[in-house]
């Protein structure tokens, strides 16, 4: 399909063209229309003698075939003369094929200086002289093709060819630079490493092999590289026997030693695997690419420290991939049994942790640690660790654990966890790595926070930050206010491990023995669960929902079967300090421990800003007299404005949460209660995140909220539409603000009512009751629905199934459709302020299974 590649009008020089490869190249080029200078000194292949016969024979052959050629008998060391004969005969020069070569094979110890020099002169100096003489012509005419001849012996080395190897690889470097310099003048320079039967190889290769390695199998590549349509340059090709392929350099990703940390031969030895591992490699093709990793390390600047176990630069702040998990009532019960609940199966309080049909079934709150730690353990099992943490399980001890819940754990939930390396401390001999995991519920709201501090033996000593060292949660010097004793079962660890901690140390006697333990030890987090249960039992009257957080230090090992004694001191209504001992050995196993409690059970859905919110006025007063209008003053002014213009608040009727950054501050603008307060609210309908400066610009009318939003400077979550009702912000009286900023007393806004955290009552039970009544009264409604529908209501949680005319609390896994919706949104549906389709499109009503069922939920309205 493509035309024959022609060389009409082109003039080529082929050195060493009297025999072998050179002759073959010359004949091919001439056949395709090139005018060729046949250069050959006519010597032997070892460099002796001189004759014109070889060159003349090739010229004659070309002319006989109708081609044009002239002979030249100069040594390649007289390169100028060879180029001159091309100019004399044909008036130009386009192609140079540097092919001439000789051999002086001898082992290095026997090699004479003459052997070395002669090989260098013919291969390297000769190629230089010929190319240097042609170069100005090629540049001038902005066209040229140069081919050098290298050899596998140069690339890989070959016994007895030290001189030849030196010369052949020298040409590769020579050609690489010429390729770069020739590029802008359209001079392409390439190198071949051929293998062919010729005078130079007939002494080393068997005869039948020589037959199949004809020079004619190499010349097509030389011709293509010499053709004008080839623009590839700087290449190195192996060719022969019908094969041709390109070579390139490959470099391992190697090892990088961060500067400022010091490294010596020991570190080179330690990283030898990485330095030499081609499993991960790249192919630098220029000096710039070669310098890439070097420059990257220099630009990365000095290290924050570390050693072969811990690289603080890589590890600190690393965000693990997000992971998800699920738990249900069965997981909660298994966990509670694992931490010793229901040793007395008639204990009604404990039954609430293990029997899902009990009236007050609830999660033992310390369960919040389990999914978070399991996620980290699972990553460990898959070999996924944070970069820069290079130590095995054998070095680590669970040092401290902090677990906090923002509200009671639902009895079943799909969780999303985001973990990061929060802190790394150098404790001298050892090191401490703190992992923080933030756990979110199905709605994406933060549910729990865990901090797991791991002590890494022998990994410290780089002179880094030592971290907090104050002795916290020390028991007061008096008798404990409560003591609970609890004997663990001999198989306690085997039961606890079913909650997910797979470490064989807790199950495999052989494995435990290898670590110097007489038998498998109890999980630290199992005794942690015991301790938590004890404190809750002593101070919460069995209502664990007031649990806020627990922090412990693991001081020593507990063996299954031992008795855990928890000593507790009540420091305040919301705080209990405690420690745990093993009775049999009188050893402290958990120390420096405390539990914090909420005063009231926290609710996900509260109807007013949380107790954290404080009046804006004092803040504003503090910011006053600086002469500068601050966001605090603006919010104060907004409060004053809204007090005067109650109709504005009534019209908007939305709870806004502002999260400002640079500097950070949070504000609640509750236009339902007509309140402005500093702090977070538990129930924002619309949350706006932006910088303080952008907020100020927005209130001055200098920035348009929509534009801030579309350019990513303003993040809005919740009800985005509501943010379009913020126009009134630009109507705030700037003069009052300026006066306040100047320290002039202006009329203070009405005292903001202290917000109360009134727990919301779930509306779902009432709605489903009403639906049941309507279905019972109207069978037509039931047949219209014609499906089994499972409702999962969240915040507060509940499940209902509508099956024909019956409505029942609970689940049905065989339902036609599974609907997940919040209690609030369900209430809005019932009130008719929204519809099913809108909620679905907004992602607030999730439908698994048959979506069409959701079309037929009209009965929800007015229920």
């Amino acid at each position: 399909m493509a035309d024959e590649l022609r060389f009409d009008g082109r003039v080529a020089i082929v050195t060493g063209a009297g025999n072998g490869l050179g002759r073959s190249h010359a004949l091919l080029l001439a056949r395709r229309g090139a005018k060729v200078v046949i250069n050959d000194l006519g010597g032997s292949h070892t460099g002796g003698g001189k004759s014109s016969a070889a060159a003349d024979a090739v010229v004659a052959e070309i002319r006989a075939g109708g081609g044009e050629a002239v002979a030249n008998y100069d040594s390649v060391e007289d390169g100028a003369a060879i180029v001159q004969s091309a100019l004399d005969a044909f008036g130009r020069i386009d192609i140079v094929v540097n092919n001439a070569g000789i051999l002086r094979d001898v082992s290095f110890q026997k090699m004479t200086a003459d052997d070395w020099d002669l090989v260098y002169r013919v291969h390297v100096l000769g190629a230089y002289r010929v190319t240097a003489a042609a170069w100005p012509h090629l540049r001038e005419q902005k066209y040229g093709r140069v081919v050098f001849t290298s050899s596998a012996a140069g690339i890989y080395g070959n016994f007895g060819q030290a001189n030849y190897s030196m010369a052949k690889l020298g040409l590769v470097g020579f050609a690489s630079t010429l390729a770069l310099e020739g590029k802008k003048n359209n001079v392409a320079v390439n190198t071949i490493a051929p293998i062919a039967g010729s005078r130079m190889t007939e002494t080393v290769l068997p005869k039948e092999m020589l037959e199949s390695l004809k020079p004619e199998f190499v010349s097509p590549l030389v011709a293509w590289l010499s053709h004008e349509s080839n623009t590839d340059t700087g290449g190195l090709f192996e060719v022969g026997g019908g094969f041709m392929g390109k070579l390139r350099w490959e470099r391992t990703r190697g090892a990088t030693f961060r500067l400022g940390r010091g490294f010596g031969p020991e570190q080179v030895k330690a990283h030898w695997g990485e330095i030499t591992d081609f499993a991960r490699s790249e192919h630098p093709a220029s000096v710039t690419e070669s310098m890439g990793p070097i420059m990257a390390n220099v630009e990365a600047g000095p290290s924050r420290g570390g050693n072969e176990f811990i690289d603080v630069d890589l590890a600190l702040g690393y965000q693990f991939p997000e992971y998800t998990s699920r738990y249900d009532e069965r997981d909660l019960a298994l966990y509670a049994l694992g931490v010793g609940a229901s040793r007395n199966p008639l204990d009604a309080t404990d039954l609430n942790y293990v029997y899902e049909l009990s009236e007050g079934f609830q999660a033992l709150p310390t369960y919040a640690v389990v999914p978070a730690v399991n996620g980290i353990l699972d990553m460990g099992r898959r070999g996924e660790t944070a970069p820069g943490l290079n130590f095995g399980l054998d070095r680590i001890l669970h040092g401290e654990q902090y677990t906090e819940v923002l509200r009671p754990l639902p009895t079943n939930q799909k969780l999303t966890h985001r973990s990061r390396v929060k802190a790394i401390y150098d404790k001298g001999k050892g090191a401490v790595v703190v992992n923080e995991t933030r756990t979110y519920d199905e709605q994406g709201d933060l549910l729990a926070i865990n901090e797991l501090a791991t002590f890494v033996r022998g990994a410290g000593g780089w002179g880094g930050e030592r971290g907090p060292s104050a002795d916290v949660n020390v028991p007061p010097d008096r008798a404990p206010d409560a003591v609970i004793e609890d004997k663990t079962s001999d198989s306690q660890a085997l039961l606890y491990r079913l909650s997910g901690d797979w470490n064989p140390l807790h199950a495999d006697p052989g494995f435990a023995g290898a670590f110097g333990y007489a038998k498998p030890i109890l999980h630290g987090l199992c005794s942690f669960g015991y301790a938590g249960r004890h404190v809750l039992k002593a101070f919460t009257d069995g209502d664990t929902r007031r649990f806020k957080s627990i922090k412990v230090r693991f001081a020593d090992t507990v063996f299954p079967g031992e008795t855990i004694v928890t000593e507790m001191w009540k420091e305040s209504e919301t705080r209990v300090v405690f420690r745990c001992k093993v009775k049999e050995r009188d050893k402290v196993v958990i120390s420096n421990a405390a539990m914090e409690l909420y005063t009231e059970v926290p609710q996900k859905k509260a109807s007013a800003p949380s107790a954290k919110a404080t009046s804006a006025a004092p803040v504003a007063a503090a910011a006053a007299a600086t002469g500068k209008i601050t966001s605090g003053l603006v919010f104060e002014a907004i409060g004053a404005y809204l007090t005067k213009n109650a109709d504005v608040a009534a019209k908007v009727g939305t709870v806004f949460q502002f999260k400002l950054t640079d500097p950070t501050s949070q504000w609640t603008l509750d236009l339902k209660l007509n309140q402005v307060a500093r702090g977070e609210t538990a129930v924002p309908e619309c949350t706006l995140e932006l910088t303080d400066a952008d907020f100020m610009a927005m209130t001055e009318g200098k920035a348009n909220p929509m534009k801030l939003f579309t350019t990513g400077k303003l993040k809005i979550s919740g009800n985005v539409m509501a943010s379009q009702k913020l126009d009134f912000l630009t109507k705030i009286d700037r003069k009052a603000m300026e006066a306040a900023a100047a320290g002039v007393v202006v009329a203070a806004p009405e005292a903001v009512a202290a917000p109360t955290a009134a727990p919301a009552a779930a509306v779902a039970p009432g709605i489903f009751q009403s639906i049941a009544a309507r279905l019972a009264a109207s069978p037509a409604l039931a047949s219209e629905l014609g499906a089994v529908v499972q409702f999962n209501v969240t915040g507060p949680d509940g499940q209902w199934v509508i099956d024909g005319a019956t409505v029942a609390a609970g689940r049905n896994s065989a339902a036609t459709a599974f609907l997940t919706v919040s209690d609030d949104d369900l209430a809005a549906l019932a009130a008719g302020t929204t519809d099913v389709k809108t909620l679905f499109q907004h992602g607030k009503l999730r439908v698994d299974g048959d979506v069409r069922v959701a079309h037929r939920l009209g009965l929800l309205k007015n229920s």
Partner: protein
Amino acid sequence: MGRRVNVIGVGMVKFAKPGASEEYNVMASKAAREALADAGIPYGEVEQAYAGYVYGDSTCGQRAMYEVGLTGIPVFNVNNNCSTGSSALMLAKQAIEGGVVECAIAVGFEQMEKGALQAKWTDRTNPLDKHVGVMNDAQGVNQAPFAAQMFGGAGREYRWRYGTKKETFGKIAWKARQHANRNPYALFSDTLTLEEIMNAPEVFDPLTRFQCCPPTCGAAAAVLCSEDFARRHGIANPVYIAGQAMTTDYSSSFADSMMKMVGYDMSRAAADKVYAQAGLGPSDVQVVELHDCFTANELITYEALGLCEEGGAEKFIEEGDNTFGGKFVVNPSGGLLSKGHPLGATGLAQCTELVWQLRGRADKRQVPNARVALQHNLGLGGACVVTMYRRD
């Protein structure tokens, strides 16, 4: 009607993850040289070049083509979001069709960053602000990647209208991996089970992670020429363009429908024009490369291109009419989902795949008796290019 335009050479590089690719100029010049070698013509014969990319400073096109040759020809840089590659192709085709040149090359490339697409210029009006406004009104905005919210929202709208199961979307991702498994140029060649797809983290209901195309680096190119040129160079029976149309947003994009906001009407109108130009209909087509940036878009586009009737996508998928053995093979390459989606390169990579298919050169993923191929390339913002290829 202008002159017939042939696609005589195509080429592409294997797509790679951000950070793992060569630089754009290296990828693009490789793809261009491959296309030239495939066509069997030297770069000197090419009279104009159209270079498509989205991310990069001005004149990246020249920088890339300069590695192919310095012949001084016009090089135009083309930027049209995700339909950039096809836009470059269309300009090259128009130049030949209108008799301006005899031979032109279209090359598309992209060196992408990790992570979801984001706005680069935050000090000026975002070109998608009207589209975002529609989304705001229809479903609000959350923290998920913007494109996933837009196309996922279109999926929600479709589900609501026709009661489609979530798994039906997942099956498109399953098929994409099955196809990519046979394509050595694809980024993701491992197959996945439907369960793995459905259990992957949710990006935006109903889309899980495997239902969203990944940021990708890559390049592809096509050499186009006139009938005269092909004859002069002895190129027999080449693939040719039987129809091509570009549409941009209609007023319906900015009404109240997520499906229309993401380009349903653009796709349908462009396809209708192409069928009219070619005098062929959907039933004449054997193989389709369709813009499956998200499974939801592939699903709604089956209908926009007329591959199945409105509301029939679930049945179409369940009966296997989108894969080998069915009525059409849609995205034999693995599509954007599995082959990857280097924005500027995608349109030309689709072209490359279809040319290989029509020449019977697609190896393990060859669609039997492929004679007519359809390409659909869509960019938000917006532009939709539909192209029909034939080989006699």
